Each structure stands twice: as structure tokens, then as C-alpha cells.
């Protein structure tokens, strides 16, 4: 009963090919000599000339640096806010505003980005009129916007991690004499640390990758990397974008491999621990 049918296995294969062929094509053609991205110039390929062109492209490098700074700031702010919201939702029981908070933390995840972007820009314009801040749009408004939709993801991750732990852990700590702040620092925080880390990584990726919201709330002179890429590729394929994509795929691949190795190590240790526990019960 365990073995899946041939059909579903075949579909899994088709699906995975479907997911990876485009990425693979980006990588392969980043080494192509021809400016025509889709025609393999066998005589002069592979070549690294598009990588060289990429590294010489000041616009792209500036945009990448801006995107990194925004993503770092937004992911960190979202990490803090999302952790607070997740803890409140998972641990504070019913409180006034809970439904509102729960609704507002999940809504940004599914809200079409054009609406979020438009709404945030209108807010920033109205705020500037009313209190004179933020002055114009730019990195600050992009960061605020990214923080808002990223914190939703952190909240969900933290909340579901906490839901997996019995609240009696915190009660036990209190029972043993730990005041609320100590309970949070010594029990809750270590428990949700992995969730905060993965929430932060998720937030960083989303911010780094965001185009639509940024387009609305970015001002002149504050183009993020996706905005620069978008304006380039709207006019058709461009080999240095392929090179950029390859570098990004490489970065993700390295990160994921490291995570996979860590997971495998943990799994091995867990199995050893289970054997220990089983030995203890006999």
C-alpha cells in the first residue's frame, strides 16, 4: 500500500522537470557567447564574458547593494515584530484585538501585491502631507513596506512552532520561580529560535525578491535589484541577467546544501537519541 502508483510517480517526475528546466536553461545560457540568448554559439562557448559584464555594470551592483541593505533591515524588523505577534497569538489566550491581529497577520500573505503597494504609497503620501514624514519615497518607505508584509510570514512560522509546544513548559518555568521576562528569555526564546531563524531567512528572501510593492513605494533614484532586472527584461532577454540569475541560484544552492547537511546530522543524532531512550525504558 506504500508504493505510489506509476501515474503519480510519473507526474512527480514531470513536475520536477517542469520546475527545473527553466532554471537550468538560465544557467546554461549564461555561459553562451552569443547575445541571442537562445542560440548556442558552440564555437565560442562556454564563456564568462557576461559575468564580467555583470560585474562592470554599476547600475546592477548599486541596486543589488540597496536590495541587500533593505532586505537586512526589513527581515530584522519583521523578525522582531513577527516574533512578538506570533508569541501573542500562540500564548496570550484570548485578548482584546486578537482577532484583528490574527486577521492582519495573515492577510498580507494573500493580498495581491498591487493592492498592498498602492495602499502603502497612498499612506506614505498622506503621512508626508500630515506630519512631514517620510519625506518623499525611497529606501525608507521600501523598508517599511517590506517589513509589513514580511512580518506576516515570520508570525505564521513562529506561531506554528509555538503551537507545537505545550504551554505547560512556560508554566513549569514560572512554577520554578522564573519571572515572566526570565521565562521568555530562558524558555520561550530558545524554543522558537529555529522558527525565528527560518522566518528571518524567508523574510530576507521575500524582501530581496520583491518587485511590485517596491515599484509603488520606491522613489526616483532608489531602484532595487528586481526593479532594475524588470526594466531590463521587459525589453527582452539579456545574457547578463542570465549570469546574475546563475549567481543567485548558486547562492541558494550553497545555502540549501548547508541546511540539508545540518538536517541530516540532526536526524542522525535524533535516531541515536531515540535508541538511548528505548534502552532506558527496558
Amino acid at each position, binding site marked *: *500500500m506504500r508504493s505510489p502508483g506509476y501515474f503519480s510517480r510519473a507526474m512527480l517526475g514531470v513536475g520536477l522537470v517542469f520546475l527545473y528546466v527553466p532554471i537550468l536553461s538560465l544557467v546554461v545560457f549564461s555561459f553562451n557567447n552569443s547575445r541571442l540568448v537562445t542560440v548556442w554559439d558552440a564555437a565560442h562557448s562556454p564563456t564568462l564574458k557576461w559575468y564580467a559584464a555583470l560585474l562592470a555594470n554599476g547600475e546592477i551592483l548599486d541596486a543589488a547593494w540597496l536590495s541587500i541593505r533593505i532586505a537586512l533591515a526589513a527581515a530584522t524588523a519583521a523578525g522582531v515584530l513577527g516574533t512578538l505577534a506570533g508569541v501573542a497569538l500562540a500564548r496570550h489566550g484570548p485578548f482584546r484585538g486578537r482577532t484583528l491581529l490574527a486577521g492582519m497577520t495573515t492577510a498580507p500573505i494573500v493580498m495581491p501585491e498591487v493592492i498592498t503597494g498602492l495602499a502603502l504609497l497612498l499612506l506614505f503620501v498622506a503621512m508626508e502631507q500630515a506630519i512631514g514624514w517620510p519625506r518623499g519615497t525611497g529606501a525608507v518607505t521600501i523598508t517599511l513596506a517590506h517589513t509589513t508584509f514580511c512580518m506576516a510570514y515570520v508570525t505564521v512560522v513562529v506561531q506554528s512552532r509555538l503551537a507545537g509546544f505545550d504551554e505547560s513548559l512556560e508554566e513549569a518555568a514560572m512554577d520554578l520561580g522564573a519571572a515572566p521576562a526570565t521565562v521568555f528569555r530562558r524558555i520561550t526564546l530558545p524554543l522558537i529560535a529555529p522558527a525565528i531563524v527560518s522566518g528571518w531567512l524567508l523574510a530576507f528572501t521575500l524582501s530581496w525578491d520583491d518587485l511590485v510593492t517596491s515599484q509603488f513605494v520606491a522613489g526616483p533614484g532608489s531602484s532595487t535589484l528586481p526593479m532594475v532586472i524588470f526594466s531590463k527584461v521587459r525589453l527582452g532577454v539579456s545574457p547578463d541577467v542570465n549570469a546574475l540569475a546563475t549567481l543567485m541560484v548558486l547562492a541558494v544552492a550553497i*545555502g540549501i546544501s548547508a541546511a*540539508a547537511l545540518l538536517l541530516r546530522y540532526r536526524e542522525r543524532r535524533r535516531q541515536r537519541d531515540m535508541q538511548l531512550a528505548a534502552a532506558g525504558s527496558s
Partner: protein
Amino acid sequence: MRRFGSPSGRRLVAGIPLAWLAVLFLVPFLIVLKISFSEMRLAVPPYAPLFASHHGVPVPELHLSNYAFLVSDPLYASAFLYSLKVAAVSTAVCLLLGYPMAYAIARSRPSRRTVLLMLVMLPFWTSFLLRVYAWIGLLQNDGIINNVLLYLGLIHRPLVMLQTDFSVYIGIVYSYLPFMVLPLYANLEKHDPALLEAAADLGARPFARFLRITLPQSVHGIAAGSLLVFIPAIGEYVIPSLLGRTDQLMIGRVLSDEFFENRDWPLASAVAIVMLLLLVVPITLLQRSERRELEARR
């Protein structure tokens, strides 16, 4: 019930994110709502104030003209309907592809499951924009697919695939497939294999077992996955911009054009409000299913 934490500390924990979201999520939508009832002005900002000062007394000025315009110009209705169609077709295709994938992963050996899941998730971590961009190179007239097909002699003239409905479906299915597979996997993985054994024991053949045991049990997973694809697909902007038709716009593109090209903020706001109204039902359904999921984990 006494929960841990002093009252003031607890209020801060919930209060800070609540305040943040109120200012940067709730208030913006009220502003959108407000401006959708305003009129366009050639000014900064380009809309009329909502309260006209009448002898020093603020009088609200509500204009329904934007909504009237949305109804009168068939462009908008057609964009809405087209978005619905694209989202529905893409969701269906995603389901047809994603369900067998999730099923195969859930039924594979536990050690292999993690790897397969990671393979499905991995593209999600790489740039969405660049993954959509990759399809331009694949689909265009002198693109990779056409070149391969021509080389194999299967076709004699390049197929027109880019800037068609087909390319938009491909783009959406491609981008949102993980969102379909993950909730379905989470659901299918929990199924008790003994149920299928019991059904087999009672004489049900494989297809009947799937139809009468597996499928009914996975309804919630299907619903969650479909909503996670359908909702963002409705408002999709990047995919139709890069891959889609130029003669038929999706509503996300219409909103963005009204805003950036025509500088008609009030009309763009009205489009956003109508879009939100369209999405209220699916979003509520999704939130309910997520809450159920979270409570089930407790």
C-alpha cells in the same frame, strides 16, 4: 485565565505588532477606500480632498464617479473576467499536476520525502522574477523550445507561445505550483494507510479506493492549495507583464497602468476596492482553513 507575563509586558508584546499593522496595513486600506470616492486632480497629490471646507465646516464629498466609470467602460469588466478565467484555469492545472506530485511524495519512503519536498520548495527560494524571465527564453519564437522542436523536425514553423493565454498559464502554474503541492502533501501525509487497506479488504479496487477514500479525505488540502494559487493569481502583475497578451490586460496590470501611466489615483483605488471585494470570499475561506489547520496541530 492568568497567562504568564505581567499585564503591561503582555500588552506590549501584542500591542507593538498590532500598532504597526494598524498603521501600515489597516489605515492604508481606509485611505484607499477614501480616495476611491475622490476625484482626480492635476495636483500633488493628484486627488481632490475628501472633505470640502464649506464656510469652515468640513463637508464630506463622496463621488461615485470612479465606480460608475468602472461599470460603464467594458475594459474593466473584461479585465476582471479575464483575470478570473486565468486564475481559475491556472488553479485547475496546478491542482491536476500538483495533486499527483503531492501524492507521490506522501507515499514515498520517509527518507526520500524530505529530499523530494526540498526539490519542490527549492525554486521558491530563487528569484521569482528571474524564474518567470526564464520562460521568455524558452517560449519566444526563436526560443529554446521552438529551436528544439524545429531541430527534431516536429514542426516546420515556430509556434507562437509567448504573449498568449498559454504562456500566462505556464507562468502562473510554474510560479505557484509549490503552494499547491505543500498543503496537499501536508494533508495526504496524515492519511492512515490502514484505511486504504481496509477498503482493499472490503473489495475496493485501486481507483475506487482513491475516489472513495483518499480524495474525500483530502478536500481540505485541495481547498487550501487551490486558494493559495487562485488568490494571488487574480492580482498577478509580473507574469502577465512579461509573458502575457498585450491586447487583453489582467486587472493587476490595469490598476498599475491607471496609477503609473494615467496618474489617476482615485480610479486605481476604486479598481483596488473592487478587487478586494472579489477576493473577500476566497481570503476568508483560506483564513478559516488555516486556523483549522493550526488548531489541529495543538
